[in-house]
């Protein structure tokens, strides 16, 4: 085990090294449709680049995890789930698994990298970044899972994400002149929240102005292969609705076409729309039919 010194929020890095992934491949999940995402949730993820889950975890689990982390005198790096084995109950919760199957396919992989992000009391903000080099693709092939075992207040240094930034060719250096961005979303969440975010989504951290440690455990998941068919709770007729040129836009088709979470300009909006439809078609397993 790799015993790291206690760390404030260290530069959030993910080492992507071919062959070094000691992940566990998930056996084909049973098709318990009740935990799969809906078309609307899938469309929302494609547009926003994140999805929040509040799995009904066993009584006391959050407190046990938070307690262990509060008492942990070093950062075990990738071994955090061995040091705090209760974390597996989160990863293996049917709601978490259902969302992962929906987004990454039935044989998604839990990658070997994970990290306890302990935001120490009275520490400053962390700028916008991606965890590695820009990985831009219209496919959904890699996700971060952010687990918060305690309630997170705005003062505790929440992760902050910028919805819809996941398709941008914008390596971390290019985010350096930004602070607050219109439409950014702080992860001010309830204990037990599991946030799935697109790997390329812009994220940062507000300052922790409190006297308590803010815990977040980050997991990394990846798609193993392209879909041949939808792996979520898909209605084949879902797109048979009128285009809402100015009307109600709360169905998957119109969310994909008109969603604009941070209010970007027309050119960007049209470009996003094209990428979203490519992503959606790829997830449907219809990619063969498209030329790229």
């Amino acid at each position: 085990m790799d015993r790291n010194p206690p760390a404030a929020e260290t530069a959030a890095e993910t080492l992507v090294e071919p062959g070094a992934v000691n992940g566990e491949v998930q056996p084909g999940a049973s098709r318990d449709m009740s935990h799969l995402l809906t078309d609307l949730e899938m469309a929302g993820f494609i547009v926003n680049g994140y999805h929040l889950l509040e799995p009904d975890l066993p009584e006391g689990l959050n407190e046990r995890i938070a307690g262990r982390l509060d008492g942990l005198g070093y950062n075990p790096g990738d071994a955090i789930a061995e040091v705090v084995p209760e974390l597996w109950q989160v990863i293996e919760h049917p709601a978490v698994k259902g969302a992962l199957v929906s987004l990454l396919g039935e044989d998604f992989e839990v990658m070997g990298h994970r990290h306890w992000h302990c935001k120490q009391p009275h520490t400053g903000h962390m700028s916008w970044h991606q965890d590695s080099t820009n990985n831009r693709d219209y496919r959904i092939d890699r996700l971060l899972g952010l687990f918060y075992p305690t309630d997170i207040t705005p003062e505790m240094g929440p992760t902050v994400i910028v919805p819809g930034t996941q398709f941008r060719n914008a390596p971390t250096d290019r985010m350096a002149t930004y602070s607050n961005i219109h439409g950014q979303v702080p992860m001010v969440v309830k204990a037990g929240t599991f946030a799935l975010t697109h790997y390329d989504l812009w994220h940062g951290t507000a300052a922790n102005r409190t006297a308590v440690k803010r815990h977040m455990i980050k997991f990394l998941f990846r798609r193993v292969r392209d879909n041949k068919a939808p792996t979520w709770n898909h209605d084949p007729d879902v797109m048979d609705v009128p285009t809402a040129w100015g009307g109600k836009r709360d169905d998957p088709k119109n969310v994909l076409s008109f969603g604009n979470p941070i209010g970007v300009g027309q050119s960007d909006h049209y470009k996003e729309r094209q990428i979203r439809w490519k992503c959606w078609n790829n997830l449907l397993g219809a990619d063969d039919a498209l030329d790229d």
Partner: protein
Amino acid sequence: MSSTPNSSVRQRLLYLHARTPSVFSEILGYTPVEPVRDYRAEITADVPDWPYQTVHDALVDGWQIVQFPHQQAPIDDRDLDVVGYEFILQKLEEVQDG
């Protein structure tokens, strides 16, 4: 070269990221940089009200643009890059530390 007697004039900066290269388009990003010791621009969980909705609003308030977004940068109408178009503005003012 001697420094000017009026050495307390400093350059305040304001990074505004606008929806389009037009100064009349709404801003999506607002990042002030004050030339005082220990100042840091930071991401906050409670997003404050921005005093300007557009770059033009900042011009009306006396800010001056010192760098405009580069219209001749390579462009591909399928590719997306950063959020908005970056204008950098200044005010030259007498500023005292703390």
